[in-house]
């Protein structure tokens, strides 16, 4: 910190020998724990400061992402007038307004009375959108694109839109925050005495340095929360996720499927699934204290209806609440995952999200107040990064000016080279790392911004319309939403199959599968095609060897027991399969 670099006290009139005797120990003292801590603190703050500032500033804004979107988008805004409509009924109403698109992940927003309920769907191009409904009047308020300003900020903070390393890199800043905090305090002797010390004015650099320290001291609690949660996520990603490090958190309960017996009981006629209103009523009857936050209709015929929410538990991350799985045909509860039964480590793991992003107060004024506190301290933290950089630059600039004043021309040239060479300047090689990352973030952002308007229909390889029993079916394979130009069929990769099949067919078909090669047994006909109406699809693992003449085989099994099959050449032959890239 600043005191360490201030000039030593003026020499007294003692002898030169005494001066030498006092200087020597000073040189040694430079490498004591305090100075080392200062070096670490400066290194963390200076070398990656540009990236750190982006992470902190975007994180600060991301705290209010939902509120920002709420202000910008009238579709989200509602006025609480009377009682809320049953959440399942709301979903049924919203679904009726989008008859050709299956809605998924319907979120009630019950914790946010001024915000509409919403669900996700795929538009006719195959891109994501969100549909909104007023939970008091039942009026559909409209739909919005995938990438809103708030969501953009959240994604930017979480990933920097950098491929692969983005999330791990952001998480690494959590550890750096923690290190910086500890090193900063170690470098600040008797820091506890300075909580109420007014910054010294007169000299800009000294003022900024004092302000930096004062803000740092009052932000200790917040830096600990951000640092610990970020460091926890850093261990999980990349170490647990990509490097097989031991995961101390016990596996979470998995999502169930309906059993063979439950499906057999339904007989040979197409069963009629229960409505959203009936499902939510069943859950409320069974668990009167359960607040429904999310409803997700089955994506295939062995998939239970998923109803997520809260029994009142705190510190649960978004989308990770207690969940009740309901048989969509007879209303039996298949499984209940109660967050209150989680282990201490699972609860700790869950708590990191709400603590980091400040949404732990859940609802009402308290939620907004907590978020504003998080936003304020986030802004202060961003200020710490910026002022830290300014302090460093001012300090090095002062030194540079002194040198420059002696031999201007040659020194100017040397200075330019010093700043430009990879290892030169205050940030050294890290300046190029920062610049490279910033370019990457810029490119990532521009790619991401195009996401909302892109779809996957009729892209990649197109498998022409064919008869599948009494129905027609076609599909296309694509490598990714933004990968339309890449070959979607390559040995050993995961590809995506989007299947176009009519509503009537889906009513009568129990299971629809696809595989490479004709199924050996009807018991294992391949990969299950699933998803909401209008976006039936399969995530398909292609075999490591694809033989010449290999074909995709599609198998439909109806509720009444009929089996229908059709097939296409995997690779384009310009007769049945076309390359439409």
């Amino acid at each position, binding site marked *: 910190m600043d005191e360490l670099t201030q000039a030593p006290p003026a020499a007294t009139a003692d002898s030169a020998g005494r001066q030498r005797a006092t200087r020597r120990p000073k040189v040694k003292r430079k490498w004591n724990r305090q100075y080392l801590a200062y070096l670490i603190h400066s290194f963390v703050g200076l070398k990656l400061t540009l990236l750190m500032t982006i992470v902190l500033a975007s994180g600060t804004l991301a705290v209010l992402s939902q509120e920002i979107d709420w202000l910008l988008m009238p579709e989200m805004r509602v006025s609480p007038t009377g009682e809320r409509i049953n959440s399942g009924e709301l979903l049924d109403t919203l679904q009726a307004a989008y008859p050709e698109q299956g809605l998924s992940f319907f979120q009630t927003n019950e914790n946010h009375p001024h915000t509409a309920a919403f669900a996700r769907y795929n538009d006719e191009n195959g891109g994501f959108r969100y549909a909104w409904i007023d939970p008091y009047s039942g009026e559909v308020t409209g739909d919005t694109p995938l990438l809103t300003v708030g969501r953009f900020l959240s994604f930017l903070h*979480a990933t920097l839109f950098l491929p*692969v390393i983005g999330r791990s890199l952001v998480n690494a800043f959590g550890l750096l925050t923690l290190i910086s905090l500890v090193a900063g305090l170690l470098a600040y002797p008797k820091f506890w005495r300075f909580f109420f010390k007014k910054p010294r004015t007169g000299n800009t650099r000294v003022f900024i340095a004092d302000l930096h320290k004062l803000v740092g001291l009052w932000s200790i609690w917040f830096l600990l929360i951000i640092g610990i949660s970020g460091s926890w996520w850093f261990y999980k990603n990349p170490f647990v996720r990509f490097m097989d490090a031991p995961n101390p958190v016990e596996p979470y309960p998995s999502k169930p499927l309906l059993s063979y017996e439950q499906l057999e009981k339904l007989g040979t006629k197409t069963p009629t699934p229960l409505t959203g209103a009936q499902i939510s009523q069943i859950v409320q009857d069974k668990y009167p204290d359960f607040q429904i936050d999310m409803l*997700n209709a089955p994506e295939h015929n*062995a998939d239970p209806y998923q109803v997520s929410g809260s029994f009142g538990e705190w510190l649960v991350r978004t989308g990770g609440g207690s969940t009740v799985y309901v048989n969509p045909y007879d209303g039996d509860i298949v499984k209940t995952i109660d967050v209150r039964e989680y282990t201490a480590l699972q609860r700790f793991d869950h708590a990191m999200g709400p603590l980091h992003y400040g949404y732990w107060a859940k609802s009402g004024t308290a939620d907004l107040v907590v978020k504003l506190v998080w936003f304020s301290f986030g802004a202060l933290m961003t200020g710490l990064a910026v002022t830290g950089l300014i302090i460093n630059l001012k300090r090095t600039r002062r030194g540079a000016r002194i040198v420059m004043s002696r031999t201007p021309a040659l020194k100017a040239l040397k200075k330019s080279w010093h700043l430009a060479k990879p290892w030169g300047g205050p940030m050294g090689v890290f300046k190029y790392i920062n610049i490279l990352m910033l370019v990457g973030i810029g490119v990532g952002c521009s790619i991401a911004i195009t996401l909302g308007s892109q779809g996957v229909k009729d892209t990649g390889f197109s498998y022409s319309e064919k008869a599948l029993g009494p129905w027609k079916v076609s599909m296309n394979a694509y490598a990714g939403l*933004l990968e339309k130009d890449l070959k979607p069929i390559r040995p050993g990769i995961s590809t995506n199959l989007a299947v176009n099949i009519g509503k009537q067919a889906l009513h009568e078909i129990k299971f629809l599968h696809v595989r490479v090669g004709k199924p050996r047994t009807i018991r294992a006909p391949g990969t299950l095609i699933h*998803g909401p109406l209008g976006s039936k699809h399969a995530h398909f693992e292609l075999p490591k060897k694809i033989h010449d003449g290999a074909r995709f085989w599609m198998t439909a099994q109806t509720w009444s027991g009929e089996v229908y099959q059709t097939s296409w050449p995997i690779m384009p032959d310009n007769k049945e399969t076309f390359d439409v890239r």
Partner: protein
Amino acid sequence: MSASRLMSFRLSSSSPSLLVLASVFILSSQLSHAHSINLDCSQVQQEVQCKGGFSDGSGTSNLPYVVISYNDDVLAQGHSSEQSTFTFPLPEQDYYILLDAGPGHVVELDMQDVAKN
């Protein structure tokens, strides 16, 4: 399209924007969703070691396996371990493996697709 559709992409250097996309949707992947089942087996000396998994990353512990000859004889059967693995002696006949994770989720792997280590 569920979130798993996006998260199940293989991360490879040949598809940078795919990786961007995967990272973009990592938040939405926190919502649970339908998933596909995969099976990988490899031959290690005189035994075959299999490991199943769902596309959302969840395991396949305690699920029934059956190893069947081309003549429809059952050669081996059992359940996967807590670590989602299943091991059986290398059959002398031609065979295929079935892993049954429930209705619509039965995966078959032919001996031709068993990796030789």
